[in-house]
Each structure stands twice: as structure tokens, then as C-alpha cells.
């Protein structure tokens, strides 16, 4: 099912009526961000491909991952696959990790090489994403960096998505938070006052982009995970400088280094919680080399008040690692929905082994590498409640929660600085709501008999979906 590059995936989206082409010339502002906001407002919103952008040579595409239909197609599944089915398919493929990448000598990304007179505006149709952003942002690139203490270990190499503000023809600002893998790489480089080489890859196989925003462990390889999810090895080649591994079929690669021990004003930027981050002093990247394909496509991302493309891009890929990390020690856990703002809100369904187990599951989440800073509101429901079905979750909240016993606050805990409620930025209070049914030795509520789902309901769901499909209705 693997797509060899972005172009092959765009062709698939177009064939499945999940991509629209804008052939008329558009203005960089406000047309691109407005379309990026509009597309996910539409049910099963399509990718939007801009062929002509005023003043620029190259095209751009937005909202490539921006619907559950596109997400399913990324996984090679029918576009009407449900979220829960996509969750379990991802979990199944996750078990195939690691699938080692294959290194090849060259790739399309080396078709054009620029080593002098770098001008990002020549190659990329840059645009303002949100109105009061501090500048033009590259918001959907793979940023690749290595651990200078173990430079040849490609598993400690990081492939992550970080916001990049264009601050000159060859200068970018980067947000590298301390708990991000690149934050660890940067700290090690700055402790010895060395520049940190980076490669910024734009326009990729959609699974690579998906993995770059997945919170996996420090020494796990995003490339090996992408191989598992796409069920074929990723093809890599070497960057021109810095000995970094880059996807050989990327559209554009910007090579440079993070300037050590220097911070400059960056931001604000309209961020994934749906609000602007403040302006901060952040690190900068000097770009010295660009390689790109002929007629490269600029793939970028609009993010705003959910749901926008980023919410699809960090939904199930946040859910799966959290699910597996918790389930490893608590096998009663059935599913984890960490879809809401990158897991700031997380819903877990679990069986309860003994009284208070739901709270213990929540605390386990809050001790995982990602859940520790990100997750603020944790709701735990019974095993038969579908955590992806919010009406069912609301049913559990209204019929299972004893507010005096099941609602817990944990003050002064690690937090996500971009969460506007964190105070100071980077700390917040955790909220646990245990909406599981009490079990012994807890005091059990009045005995109730649950209503059972009628026999053959699953079968009838499939029949009704098939009938809708036959009528051309995609549900």
C-alpha cells in the first residue's frame, strides 16, 4: 500500500475525489490560509492544491491529512473507514516495528542543488498562516537532527515536526521545547558550543509526516516506525552535509545548522490549542544548502481552532503510543483516545481490576513521556464505552461519576507551554475524572443492568454503510 512520495499520494487523493485543484491564480495572503481553514470545515474535507500563486514559481498543497477520509487513504484503507477501525489497524501495524529503512545513493530530491545565494522565497511559496503570526511559517516539515554524543546511531536521530519562522532569505526560527527530542539534541550541542546540523524536509510520503508528529521514545526511529506502518521500508539518502538521513523522494530539503547559544525573538504563532503563543526568545537555523525536485510542491499546514489539519495529524498517532505504553503494564486498558489537542484531553477505556483502578490508569498516563507534560484532562471510562464516541463518553460522565469521589486535581504538575492555561508556561493542574463503574472494595452504586446491543448490530452497520456507498454517499 505504500506511497513512494507525496505526489503518488496526491494522485490517490485525486482519484478518490479527496483533492481539489485551484487553477486560477491566488494571492499568498489571505487565500492560502483561508482555504486551509475552509477545507477541514467541510465533512471529509479534501486536500487543496494551488497551481498558481501570485509572484511565486512553485505550487503549494494544504490539508493533505485534513480529514478522516484522507487519513484512511494514507493507511491504504477505504476512505470511509471509521476512526476506531483506523486506530486498531494502526495498532496492528505498530507491532511490526522495526522495519529498517533502505539507503539508496540518490533520489529525486537531489535533482536541483543550490549552495550559493540561498533564497527560501525562490523555492517555497511562503505565506502567513494566521493573521498575527510574527512572519511566514513552515509548519509541516520533517526536521532531522542527531545526538552528537552518538552521532552514527540513526535510532537516536530525530525526525520531528517543529514550527519554523522564516526570518530572512536563509534564516529560520525554530521552537525546540526542552522535552522534545530536538531539544535534547540542542542542549547537548549547546553545552559544548557546537552548531547542530539539521535537514528540513518538505513534501513527503504522508506516513513520514504522520510519524514526525508521533511522540515515540528518544531512541526509537521514526523511519523504522514508518516502515512498519507503510509495510515497506522507507528509502533514505544522505544529506549534502551533516551526514543526516533524509527521505530520497522529498520535494525540498533545506540544510543548515542551529546557531549555538543564541536566542532571538520568535512568534507569535497561531498554535494547535487554537490560540496564539506569545513571542519568545528561541533558537535560529542558518540555511546554507537547498536541494529539491524539479517543480517542487510546497506542502504546508494551516492550524487553528480545532478541527483543522493538525488535529488529524496528531490524533491517532498520539493515541497509539500512549495506548501501548499504558497497556504494557495495565493489560485491562482497551483503547486510548488522545485526539484532543495532542492529548491535552485524553479518554481511556479500561476494565477495572479493583476499586480505584480507573484513577490508577489515569496516573499511569500522567507518568508516560508524552502524557506527563501534555495531558491535562484525563477521563477514564469502562471497557464497553467507545472512547472515540463522545456521546457514549458523556453518558459515562453523567451516569458513572460521583463528583465527591471520582474527580481529582493534581496541582503544580508538568504542563505544555503552548496550553494557554499553563501558569507559568510549562506547568498546570491535572484533572482526572474517573467515569468507570465502581468495583470492590469500592462502594458499589445501586446495581444496574446495562442495555445490551442487539445481536447482529455490527453486521447491520456494514450493510447500511455498503448501501450508502452504493448510492454514492460517503459515510
Amino acid at each position, binding site marked *: 500500500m505504500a506511497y513512494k512520495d507525496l505526489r503518488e499520494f496526491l494522485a490517490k487523493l485525486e482519484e478518490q475525489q479527496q483533492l481539489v485543484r485551484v487553477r486560477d491564480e491566488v*494571492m*499568498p*495572503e489571505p487565500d492560502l490560509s483561508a482555504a486551509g481553514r475552509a477545507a477541514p470545515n467541510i465533512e471529509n474535507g479534501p486536500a487543496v492544491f494551488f497551481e498558481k500563486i*501570485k*509572484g*511565486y*514559481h512553485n505550487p503549494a498543497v494544504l490539508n493533505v491529512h485534513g480529514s478522516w477520509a484522507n487519513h484512511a487513504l494514507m493507511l491504504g484503507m477505504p476512505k470511509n473507514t471509521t476512526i476506531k477501525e483506523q486506530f486498531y489497524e494502526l495498532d496492528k501495524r505498530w507491532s511490526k516495528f522495526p522495519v529498517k529503512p533502505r539507503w539508496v545513493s540518490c533520489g529525486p530530491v537531489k535533482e536541483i542543488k543550490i549552495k550559493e545565494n540561498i*533564497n527560501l*522565497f*525562490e523555492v517555497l511559496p511562503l505565506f*502567513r498562516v494566521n*493573521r*498575527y503570526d*510574527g*512572519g*511566514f511559517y513552515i509548519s509541516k516539515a520533517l526536521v532531522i537532527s542527531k545526538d552528537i554524543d552518538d552521532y552514527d546511531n540513526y535510532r537516536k536521530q530525530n525526525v520531528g515536526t517543529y514550527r519554523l*519562522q*522564516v*526570518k*530572512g*532569505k536563509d534564516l529560520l*526560527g525554530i*521552537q*525546540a*521545547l*526542552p522535552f522534545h527530542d530536538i*531539544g535534547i539534541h*540542542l*542542549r547537548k550541542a*549547546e*553545552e*559544548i*558550543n557546537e552548531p547542530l546540523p539539521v535537514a528540513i524536509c518538505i513534501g513527503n510520503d504522508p506516513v513520514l509526516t504522520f510519524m514526525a508528529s508521533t511522540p515515540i521514545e528518544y531512541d526509537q526511529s521514526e523511519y523504522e516506525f514508518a516502515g512498519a506502518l507503510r509495510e515497506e521500508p522507507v528509502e533514505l539518502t544522505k544529506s549534502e552535509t551533516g551526514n543526516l538521513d533524509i527521505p530520497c523522494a522529498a520535494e525540498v530539503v533545506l540544510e543548515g545548522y542551529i546557531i549555538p*547559544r*543564541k*536566542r*532571538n*525573538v*520568535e512568534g*507569535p504563532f497561531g498554535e494547535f490549542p487554537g490560540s*496564539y503563543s*506569545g*513571542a*519568545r*526568545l*528561541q*533558537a535560529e537555523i542558518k540555511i546554507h544548502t537547498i536541494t529539491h525536485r524539479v517543480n517542487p510542491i510546497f506542502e504546508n499546514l494551516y492550524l487553528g481552532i480545532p478541527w483543522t489539519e493538525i488535529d488529524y495529524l496528531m490524533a491517532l498517532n498520539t493515541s497509539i503510543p500512549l495506548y501501548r505504553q499504558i497497556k504494557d503494564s495495565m493489560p485491562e486498558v482497551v483503547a486510548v483516545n488522545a485526539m484532543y489537542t495532542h492529548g491535552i484531553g485524553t479518554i481511556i477505556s479500561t476494565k477495572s481490576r479493583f476499586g480505584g483502578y480507573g484513577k490508577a490508569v489515569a496516573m499511569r498516563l500522567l507518568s508516560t513521556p508524552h502524557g506527563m507534560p501534555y495531558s491535562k484532562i484525563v477521563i477514564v471510562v469502562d471497557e464497553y464505552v467507545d472512547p472515540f464516541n463522545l456521546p457514549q463518553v458523556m453518558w459515562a460522565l453523567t451516569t458513572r461519576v460521583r463528583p465527591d469521589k471520582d474527580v481529582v486535581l493534581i496541582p503544580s504538575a508538568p504542563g505544555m*507551554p503552548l496550553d494557554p492555561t499553563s501558569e507559568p*508556561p510549562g506547568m498546570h493542574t491535572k484533572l482526572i475524572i474517573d467515569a468507570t463503574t465502581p468495583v470492590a472494595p469500592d462502594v458499589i452504586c445501586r446495581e444496574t443492568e446495562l442495555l445490551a446491543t442487539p445481536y447482529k448490530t455490527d453486521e447491520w452497520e456494514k450493510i447500511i454503510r455498503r448501501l450508502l456507498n452504493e448510492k454514492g454517499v460517503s459515510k
Partner: protein
Amino acid sequence: MICPRCDSNTAEKIVDAPKDKSWEVYLCSTCGFSWRSTEDEAITDPARYDKKFKLEPAVLDSLLAIPPVPPLKESVKKD
């Protein structure tokens, strides 16, 4: 040129539209703000830029540094 965000007289043109010079991009070396000449006046005109998003040059050095610059290792200090 005056920066619409911080009102410093330190903004300069950094590029013309690569294809047809149909617009220019300006960048302020004081606060790092950049804008395109074709954006609306609420972005390009210092008098009309939203006050909530203005940045005083005097506060720039005191903004939160993320991540903070770590201490140099002892071995590097000795070099």
C-alpha cells in the same frame, strides 16, 4: 522603513516576488517581524496594527527563552 509591529525604523526589504516582482517582503531587524507589501493595512501600517500584538523593543530582551541556553560544560570552559 517603520516596522508595523514594534515601530522601530529598522525594517528593510529582503526580497521581491521571484517570478514577477509583483510584491516585496520586508523584515524588521529589531523584532523579527516580516510582512508582504500586498497584505492589508491592518498588517502593513504601523498605525493600524492591532495594539494587542505590538511589541515594545524595550521588552524583547526580557522575553522568556525557550529552551534556556544551558551552562557550558566545564571541559569547554577550559578551552
